[in-house]
């Protein structure tokens, strides 16, 4: 059950990576390298996954040991016991935790239904790395039990097994579809150019020009001229 804010959805996926190596390189490092080599902006495979607002991938190697000093606002009885026992003082130090596997973390903010989104990942995720086209399996290839994924449905169930709920999802933007957002950005850009260019002109001139402007930019047509996902140049 992914977390929503209106129609915006937060997907958090932690997929355990197989322990072990392929030759002299670990599965985690292979996965990490593949992530680092993903092309960016409009060439990212995420640009092809419909309705992706912002998304990221990284490897969680381990958790951190909190050696920094802090001021815990929680009262601990150990604060008192430490006066009397060195063991109590030592026990009160933060414990050292270690993860037994590394995790591929995928966090996505997108519009709409989770199942549709995951199907979109399976069907549309594609990019070129060193001359070869890859799909979504190339990133998840070395995750535990990913070899059981053979089709769209098994991919969706796999991701759902790896999914975590958000306790708080803050939406500081909009929850419109990506197409809406991109079209709106395109219109903002184009209309700004229009109004500055036509400052001071006569009523007739502006009206005629505006009609031509509307024909060109087609404000209500989401498939008409617009920004492309990941567009990095004006």
């Amino acid at each position, binding site marked *: 059950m992914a977390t929503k804010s209106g129609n915006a959805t937060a997907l958090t996926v932690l997929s355990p990576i197989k322990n072990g190596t392929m030759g002299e390189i670990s599965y985690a490092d292979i996965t990490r390298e593949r992530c680092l080599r993903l092309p960016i902006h409009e060439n990212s495979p995420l640009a092809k996954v419909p309705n*992706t607002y912002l998304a*990221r991938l990284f490897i969680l190697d381990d958790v951190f040991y909190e050696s920094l000093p802090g001021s815990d606002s929680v009262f601990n009885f150990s604060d008192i016991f430490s006066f009397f026992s060195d063991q109590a003082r030592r026990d009160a130090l933060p414990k050292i935790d270690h993860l037994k596997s590394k995790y591929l973390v995928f966090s996505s903010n997108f519009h709409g239904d989770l199942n549709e989104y995951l199907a979109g990942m399976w069907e549309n995720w594609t990019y070129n790395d060193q001359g070869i086209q890859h799909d979504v399996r190339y990133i998840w290839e070395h995750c535990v039990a990913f070899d059981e994924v053979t089709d769209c449905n098994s991919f969706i169930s796999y991701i759902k097994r790896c999914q975590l709920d958000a306790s708080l999802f803050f939406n500081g933007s909009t929850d419109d579809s990506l197409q809406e957002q991109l079209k709106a950005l395109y219109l903002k850009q184009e209309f700004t150019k229009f109004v500055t260019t036509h400052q001071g002109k006569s009523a007739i001139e502006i009206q005629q020009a505006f009609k031509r402007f509307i024909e060109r930019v087609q404000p209500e047509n989401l498939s008409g001229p617009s920004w492309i996902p990941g567009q990095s140049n004006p």
Partner: protein
Amino acid sequence: MSNIAGKAYAMNVVTPIRWYMVWINRLIFKIALSRPSTLKGLITLSLIHYARWVIIPKDGFPHLHPSQPKENLHYSYMLFFSNFNGSWDQYVDSFTFAIPSGLDLFWKWNIRYPKSVPLTPFHDYIKYNQIDTAHYYSAYPMAASNDVKSAKIVKKALIDFKSASIEKNPDEFLIDYNNLLNELQLEFGEMRPTPIVSLSADAVKQRYLQSQSHHYI
């Protein structure tokens, strides 16, 4: 390059939280969500696209197959993911100064959280627990969160104006047009690539662009 996608910066913070505090945090988040006034500062700051907190109970790490060793942890963990605009420093500073008590609210129960004021221990706490992103994607690298919100306003106003006024006689059209511009006067900022928030990130980006221009396929 990894933590930045145009005007957006990806921050990932992982911190341990006492297992019995998990429920208190969930409660706090619930309250925060149901009381918009709690988030007033966050909304006014306007720097964030989307942000989330995820709590992983210590037995909550996904376990998919018997061959995968089960996690055996003392603590539960809190994941914080943010997509924001500006540099790391600007972002963290904004929070410390604008909503210090809000920050404390969210991180209070984490192990050795130092409180958000004074600044440097808080900076250190976040940096220390931050993990770098390997791949970061924004659908609109040239747009800040402000731009996305502004664009929505422009689109609606433009479409409404078109229906109401495009066929009026020129003089009436002009009156409506001027009203439209007046209404949208705070929405006309240019959108172009971002100023550099990090020299090292920029250097990596320049090298990447150079390598792309040698790319052949």
